[in-house]
């Protein structure tokens, strides 16, 4: 499994559509995944009062459209663009949603984004240093990028975005931190954690 495929963090809609929609040819994952930008675009373009529903709808459409892409091994020339595109599409859409709701929703959004960022960094470190993929149950509990966008949009429609963001931040934060600590300590006790001075920070600048 290439890194690009491992870093996607897809949710139930994508999973469903990848199983249901028939496709003989493996499609270009980058082109299909570009639809993930639809929710962000909707939230930017549609007037504030209808934005949550527009975002929810486009999250569903994007999730269904991106499904077949997961069958590709993501080893094409430009497929390395898929994970950063998904990160940006999701985080920016959540931020836009919070901004539309009101200034007091933005700190809550920051909290959730920080939790999601921790989770996504942990996915990378886990693969690099433990050779382990993220467990499926953990990925499913997180709902994936399109699942989270859908839930946030529905919460915003009900005027409950700020509490929803806070609750999600606390619950997911606890889940990820506990699973992380347990997993990493167990792996290091097993001797399964690789030490590689070269694989240090991406801030070692050679691209």
């Amino acid at each position: 499994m290439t890194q690009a495929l491992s870093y996607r963090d897809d949710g139930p809609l994508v999973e469903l559509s990848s199983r249901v929609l028939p496709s003989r040819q493996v499609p270009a994952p980058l082109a299909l995944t570009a639809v993930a930008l639809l929710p962000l675009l909707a939230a930017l373009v549609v007037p504030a009062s209808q934005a949550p529903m527009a975002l929810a709808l486009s999250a569903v459409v994007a999730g269904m459209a991106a499904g077949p892409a997961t069958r590709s091994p993501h080893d094409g020339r430009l497929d390395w663009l898929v994970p950063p595109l998904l990160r940006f599409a999701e985080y920016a859409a959540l931020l836009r949603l919070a901004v539309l709701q009101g200034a007091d929703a933005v700190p809550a959004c920051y909290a959730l984004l920080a939790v999601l960022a921790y989770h996504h960094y942990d996915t990378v470190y886990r693969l690099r240093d433990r050779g382990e993929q993220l467990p499926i149950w953990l990925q499913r509990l997180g709902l994936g990028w399109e699942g989270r966008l859908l839930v946030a949009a529905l919460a915003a429609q009900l005027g409950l975005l700020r509490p929803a963001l806070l609750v999600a931040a606390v619950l997911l934060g606890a889940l990820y931190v506990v699973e992380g600590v347990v997993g990493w300590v167990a792996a290091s006790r097993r001797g399964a954690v690789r030490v590689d001075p070269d694989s240090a920070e991406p801030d070692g600048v050679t691209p």
Partner: protein
Amino acid sequence: MAVLLAAVPGEQPEAPAATLALGGADATPVGRLVEQLAGHSAELIVLTRPRFAARLDGESSAAHPVCLRTTDDAAQDLEAAAEALESAGPAPVLLVGGEVVVHSAVLAGILADPRPGVTVLVGPSRFAQEGDDLAWPLRAASTVVTAASSPFHTVSDPTCAALGVMRVGPAQQTAVAGVAREVASALRAGTLTAEHVDARLCGDAAWATLLVALVRSRVPVRTVPLRGFAWARPTDRAGAERAVARLTEVDEEQARVDAAVKPDDGWFGTFFVSPYSKYLARAAARRGLTPNAVTVTSMVLGALAAGLFAVGSRPALVAGAVVLHVAFTLDCVDGQLARYTGAFSALGAYLDAVFDRVKEYLVYAGLAVGAASNGDDVWVLAAAALVLQTTHHTLQFSWPGAEQPGVLPRTGPLTAVEINGSGSGPAQTPSNRRAAAGRAAAFVSRSTEAVPGLRWAKRMVMFPIGERFAVITLGAALGGARVVFTVFLVWVSLALAWSTTGRFLRSVSR
């Protein structure tokens, strides 16, 4: 276990280069190596030709017993090495040229290197070009060796030189032994030929050809840089005198401290932190502090800095900036301490990385809270900074996965003198536009590497961790949260544009 190959002839007929006199006290390269390695290795094996055996017998002493074996040619050298590898225990095995003269810290370092697999000591390519010492030109992409040379193989465009020290990790010992036996049979079968066979180089044929075979059979071979230490591999008296001079003129302790700094640091780290943090690393080593203790302290201080930023007043911002700079310095020290003592821990690198992220995003939040207490709402800016920075990191994380096909060594038969082409897969003739894009990217890359100012500028554009913390520290102390985030957002957007465009051009040109 260490296997010393001492078949390179010196100036006299019965004396190998490994027994050249190095100044007083009857020191010889092989004698030095035996003494240096005795502490690290349970078993020392010396392989040499029958006519040199008498001279080398004298090197074995009661203090450092050595198993001396005679071999007639490179093929037998390799078979003896394969035997040694197969019988070696769980410790790493060193394959060293007996003429190598190097500081003890280098050998200790390569033995303590935590990377699994095969590593080879390398230095700048001028060591191989000047022709005075015995060094083999190599081509390496970042730290992976992609092409090696030997008496029978050449490398065009070498980027570094192999210095005659190879370490085989426990997991690779059987594989390397297998490759060694294959090379031995190729040598016996006479399938490997050379245009002119320099007797001096032929003595090292076993070591060099083994390296070529490993690289071509896709066994990952990584490089360990010499850094500032002294090295020589003399083959005559003049070379021996140069070796002595080099050993005395380089201060080993200073080189140890300097080698603690990682080679690919950013501009801010290199010029504003590492000059003194490496001495802090040495001080920490002398006090028996562990790298993990330093990592945790750095995290605590980072959280403290975030808390101070959250207070929001100017004195608190300045205090927070100072504390954050100390936290960042310690963040550099923990890695340098690990490199200085060779004590790499499994969780250490992970903790270092995770705490770096937590510190940074906590600090953004702290700045936003502080600004809010002053009536300025910068939460959207803080969140935007998180979004763009995470996107940039994700881009960098996903990119190496795409690069792998190009970074793999060029494979091919051992009989080919040089392997050209772009590695595995059918050769593709890129379209003109693609080729032009690739040439443009390569030209920009090469020209910016040549000029030092431009090289640093290229690194700075990437907005690495040192530069990010510098923006936060200086921005908070001198301006406040809004200034920090404004500069930050401009810089990270530039970095994203630069990274994406450069990599896009390179991908499209394949």
